[in-house]
């Protein structure tokens, strides 16, 4: 059974005097013990909002979040229950998520003290163990965050999350502020946590290459909706949604062969005024009449694979979007621009 489950979660931000924005327009997602779920999509697609809803930092406008078999209550003035504290979050920027004026060890020990997990006289020992678990020397406890590089700080933030003995950690862009080498170290650390401690990870990232490397399953989000979910390998070898295909084609390859990545024409539309029909249709090279008027549901097309695209309406299970090219004559010719807009 899934440890963390999001059921048809919607999040709407109201803006005074303007149309409210539905940042998340209905998303269902689950994370099992020891599983790494990647959530990818462009800036503004609602993935960070979904992450915040998943840990209760924002209350869903509709739908629900279930954690360890119970409905998760959004964060309020009251202290979180001990169970709910087993759902932890790590933020993008370890320069702002750690307190610069408190020692690393004290910040890690907070969670144990508040939740009463470790008696005071054993906390120092536990902090040392956690630091070693994330690959830092136990002596780091007495130092301050500024004495560490970005990658090391992100490890400290992860150690702090681990102090609460979590069953699921939601990580919002945990690697994007790091250099390649530090990124590799933290990515390996995350894989280790999932495999050895059986912690479920929901990894939000716009870096598809790293998600491909460490996630077991991937969910692709576009303008507030999940458009495709699949086991990582199959998603990459045969993307079903045209948007997934475009994301993959846009990743540069560091092989020195001079291949210019493909750009996706157009811009992400204003989430306050999403296009009618399929939200991706104005940028989709395969769009046809139905796409402009009806929104495709997220349907299971093969075991473990779900896609929201009219191309796959009739169970054309594992066919790539391009194999439907004959249907695309009436497309708007959006692919003509030299370098996209």
């Amino acid at each position, binding site marked *: 059974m899934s440890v963390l489950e999001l059921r048809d979660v919607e999040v709407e931000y109201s803006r005074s005097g303007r149309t409210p924005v539905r940042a998340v327009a209905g998303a269902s997602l689950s994370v099992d013990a020891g599983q790494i779920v990647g959530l990818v999509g*462009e*800036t*503004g697609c609602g993935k960070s909002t979904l992450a915040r809803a998943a840990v209760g930092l924002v209350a869903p406008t509709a739908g629900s979040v279930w954690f360890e078999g119970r409905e998760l209550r959004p964060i309020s003035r009251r202290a979180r229950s001990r169970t709910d504290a087993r759902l932890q979050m790590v933020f993008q920027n370890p320069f702002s998520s750690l307190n610069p004026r408190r020692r690393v060890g004290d910040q890690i020990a907070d969670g144990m003290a508040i939740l009463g997990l470790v008696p005071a006289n054993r906390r120092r020992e536990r902090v040392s163990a956690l630091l070693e678990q994330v690959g830092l020397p136990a002596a780091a406890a007495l130092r301050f965050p500024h004495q560490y*590089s*970005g*990658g*090391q700080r992100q490890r400290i933030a992860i150690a702090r999350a681990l102090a609460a003995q979590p069953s699921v950690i939601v990580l919002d862009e945990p690697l994007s502020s790091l*250099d*390649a*080498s*530090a*990124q*590799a*170290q933290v*990515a*390996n650390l995350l*894989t280790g946590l999932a*495999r050895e401690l059986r912690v479920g990870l929901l990894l939000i990232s*716009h870096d*598809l*290459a*790293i998600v*491909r*490397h*460490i996630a077991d399953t991937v969910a692709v989000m576009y303008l507030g909706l999940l458009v495709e979910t699949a086991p990582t*390998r199959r998603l*990459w070898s045969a993307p079903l949604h045209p948007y997934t295909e*475009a*994301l993959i*084609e*846009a*990743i*540069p*390859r*560091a*092989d*020195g*062969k*001079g*291949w*210019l*990545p*493909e*750009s*996706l024409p157009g*811009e*992400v539309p204003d989430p306050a005024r999403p296009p009618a029909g399929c939200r991706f249709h104005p940028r989709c090279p395969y769009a046809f009449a139905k796409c402009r008027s009806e929104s495709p549901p997220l349907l299971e097309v093969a075991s473990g694979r779900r896609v929201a695209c009219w191309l796959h309406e009739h169970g054309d299970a594992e066919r790539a979007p391009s194999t439907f090219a004959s249907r695309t004559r009436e497309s708007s010719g959006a692919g003509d*621009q*030299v*370098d*996209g*807009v």
Partner: protein
Amino acid sequence: MKALLAVRGLRVSLPTATGLVTVVDGIDYDVGPGEVFGMAGESGSGKTISVLALLGLLPDGAVVEGTAMFDGRDLLRLDRRAMRDVRGKEIAMVFQDPLTSLHPMMTIGRQLTEHLRFHLGLSRAAANARAATLLEEVRIPDALGALGAYPHQFSGGMRQRIAIAIALACGPRALIADEPTTALDVTVQAGILRLLDRLRRQSHLAVIMITHDLGVMSSIADWLTVMYAGRVVESGPTANVLGAPRHPYTAGLLAALPHPEAPEDTPLVSIAGAPPSPQARPGGCPFHPRCKYAIGSCAMDVPDLILVGDGRRLACPVDPLVVHA
């Protein structure tokens, strides 16, 4: 091809609380018209400082040595006035974050035309017309409407296109792009890379591209220089350097990248340790404490950057064949 910009022995020292610290320690390179020259390396390796030095944008008290010949003039010896004419007009720069490099309270039109009127002395009407053309050039839809809009009304990718349009306003011959796509999504990044590629082909723009992203380098740079702790460790044609890296640091950076065909749960290979701060750079080869191939002499002698064939320069005494065995 004759180089448009030839940098020789560039050394930059910056003032700190503990005295002058050498941040860039002797680098050489040439960039020709229509070429993209890439500088890669981790944060703190001196990439950005080395290009800011070319434009005289370093803080007071910085000490710059060497020469940077641009079209017969040494950029490092220009007085303030002469530098003002070069900066923006002949060599332009695009920064990582267009949200901070664009003025939030000035219309796009004003930011574009300010430049044109100052450097080229165009009339208001002529400057406006040229500004609209520039926005079309970088494919901003409704260019005339965009002139009256403010930066916040555009997405990140569009803002970076606008920043590029401003940089191109006076028809510069060289463009310095410092992590121009790092803050952008891959889909948008691809568009910017294609735009830069088109500009260098059509307008023979010389581009100095700074990025830590070797994938980006691979797609656009003709020449690649890899920097570590203020020094060049390897440089050469991008295809050679990335196709068969010979410095342990370059090889390490490439190995740290996720590989599409790697079997499941293959750990990423990271370089042990972290880059040294400029105040605490080790003696000898600056990379030796993190290098798994280091031999005794690495801690003593700074390796020379020597030509090793295939257009490549390498600063490493360890037999490259051993490195890649």
